[in-house]
C-alpha cells in the first residue's frame, strides 16, 4: 500500500493493514480435489475503517500473454452483518471481523504451471474496502498439483 493511500485510511492508527494467511499445508501445496482450509488475519488497521472484506480463490496466468484469470470461490462480507454473499456451496465462513477463515474443495484444473511463456498461478486474495472508497488487496500464492517446471529445449529432434 502506498503512503498516500495509507494516510487517509489509517488515520486512526497511523499504520498499514497487514494481512496474513495460513494454510493447513506447510508448503501450501494441494492436490486436485483437496480441501483448501485457510484462515486469514487482518492486523495493524482500525477495523472500524473497513466496510467490506472480499475473500476469493482465483487462478491467473502470467507470462508473455495477456493475463487471464478465473474465480473458483468468492465471498463478500459486510461490516456489521453476519451475512456473506457466497457463491460457493462448499465454502464456510467463520467471521472474526475483519479476520476470518474459509474452506473450499479445489477443482481438478487448471493446475499450477511454471512454463516458459505461460504460467498458471493459484492464490487466495483478501481484499479490504475502506470507508473512503479505496481498497487494499493481499495475495497469497499456493500450488495446485505437482507439475514440474518447464525448461527450454536443449536441442531439436534430428
Amino acid at each position, binding site marked *: 500500500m502506498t503512503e498516500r493511500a495509507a494516510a487517509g485510511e489509517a488515520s486512526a492508527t497511523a499504520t498499514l493493514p497487514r494481512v496474513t494467511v495460513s494454510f493447513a499445508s506447510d508448503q501450501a501445496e494441494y492436490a486436485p*480435489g483437496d480441501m483448501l482450509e485457510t484462515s486469514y488475519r487482518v492486523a495493524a488497521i482500525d477495523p472500524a475503517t473497513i466496510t467490506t472484506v472480499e475473500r476469493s480463490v482465483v487462478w491467473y*496466468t502470467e507470462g508473455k500473454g495477456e493475463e487471464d484469470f478465473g*474465480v473458483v470461490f468468492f465471498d463478500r462480507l459486510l461490516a456489521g452483518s453476519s451475512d456473506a454473499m457466497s*457463491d460457493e456451496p462448499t465454502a464456510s465462513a467463520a467471521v472474526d471481523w475483519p479476520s476470518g477463515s474459509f474452506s473450499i474443495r479445489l477443482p481438478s484444473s487448471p493446475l499450477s504451471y511454471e*512454463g516458459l511463456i*505461460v504460467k498458471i498461478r493459484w492464490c487466495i486474495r483478501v*481484499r479490504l474496502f475502506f470507508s473512503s472508497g479505496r481498497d*487494499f488487496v493481499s495475495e497469497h500464492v499456493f500450488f495446485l498439483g505437482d507439475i514440474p517446471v518447464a525448461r527450454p529445449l536443449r536441442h531439436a529432434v534430428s
Partner: protein
Amino acid sequence: MRLPIFFSKKRGERRTGSPAWGSFGEGFFYASLLTAGLFVGGLMLTGVAVPEWRINNHFTEVEGRLVGKGLARRTTTDLFGIRRQSWRPAVLLEFHADGESVRAWHTSGWGEATTDRSLALRQLDGWRLGQSIRCWYDPERIETVVLKRGYSWWLWLLTLLLPGALVVFGATGLAQAASAWGRSEERQAAEIGQLLSPLVRSSPDEEGFPTVPACADLMNSPGTIQRFRLPTESPEAWSLLGAGLFALLWNAVVIVLAVAAGFDLAGGRTDWWLFGLLAPFGLIGLAAIGLFLRRLLLATAIGPTHLEISDHPLRPGGTYGVHLSQGGAVSFRRLELVLELEEQATFRQGTDVRTEKQVVWRELMCCWDRLEPVPGRPFEATLQFKVPARAMHSFRSLHNAVGWRLVLRGIPDRWPAFLRVFPLVIVPAGPDAAAAVVRQPLREVVS
C-alpha cells in the same frame, strides 16, 4: 488535500488502488465516445438525412418553367490569404404555388462547385430557356426548390455507420463501466461466471475439468485399426490456401490492368505507364501461380497422413497405441513421429495482436530412415507411447494455451521437408493416477 490515485500499484503480494476512480475514468472515456457519437449523429441527421427525407416526403411536385440561368460564384480565402473563386451552375425556375407565381433559384444537383468557370458554363448548355421542368418545392419555404428526388444511400450508410459505431462502442463501454463501478475484478468474474454457467454446457468427458479444451472434435471420427482417427492441422494446408488466394487476387488485378491496356490498344492509344506497370505485375502473377502449383504438387505428391489413437482424451501416465498411415508415392529419407507440448500466448504489441508459440517439451516416439514406397500401399506402423506421469494437462484460456500434439515430420527425397500436426487433449490425472505419481524429472518417466 489528497489527490486520487487512478491506477492501482502492486507492491509484492499487496496491491492498492481505487476501483471507484478507475471505473470513473473508464466511464468518462466511454461517455465521451457516446456523446461524440450522438453529437456527430445529430449533426448528420439534421444536416443531411432529415433534409433529404423531407424532400422525398414533404416537398410538393409542380411543373415549372426555366426562366433564367447563370453561375453562382463563391469566393473563399485560404490560410495564406489567397482568394479563390468557384462556380456552380444555377437555374431560375418559375412555378405556381398556392395560387401565386413564384421564382426561385436552384443551384444543387450538378455536383461540386468547380474552379473552372468555362466548365461550369458548359454545364448550363443543356438547359434551354422556357423549357418545362418538373420540380419540387418546400411548402414551408416556397423559394426552396429542387429538380431531383431520391436518397443518397452511401450518405445514409455513413450517417448510420460512423456515429452508430461510436454510440454502440460508447454505450456498451459505459454500461460495462457502470456494472464494474466499485466492484473488484474477482466479484465481476464471479458474477459473470454465475450468469454464464447455465449457458455453458460441457460434454461428460470434460465435466469437472475447467479450462481444459473440448475434445469432441477429436473424437468424432472412428479409426480402422485404433479407436479414433485424429484430425490434422497441416501448416502446409494453410500455406497452400494462402498461396492460392494470393495468386487469385494478384492475377485478378493483372487481368483488370491487361483488359484496360487492351482497350487502349484497340482505341489506337498506347499508355506506356500502364504497359510498364503490367510487365512486372504479370511476372509476379506468373510467379504466384508457379508457387501455388508447386505447393499443390507437394501436397498431393506426398500423400495423406492418417493417425489413429486408441483412446481420447489422454491422461498423464497412460499408455496409448497409435497407428500411422502415410500415403503417396514418394520415398523418404526420414520420417519421425514426435510428441510435443507447446505453449501459446496472445498479447498486444502496440495496436497489433500477436501470438507467440514455443515448444517446451519434445520426445521422439519413433523414426524411420530410407523409406521406399510400395505401389498401391501406404506406409503403415503401429506403436505405443506413454504420456509422462507428471505431464501438464491441456489448457486454454482467452489469451493463453498449453497444448499437446503428435507431430509427423517428413524429409522426402526430392521435396522439401513437411509437417503434419495432430492435436491431442490431455486431462488432469484422476485420483488414482495422482496417487501413482512418482516425483521424478519429467524426461525420466517417458518411455
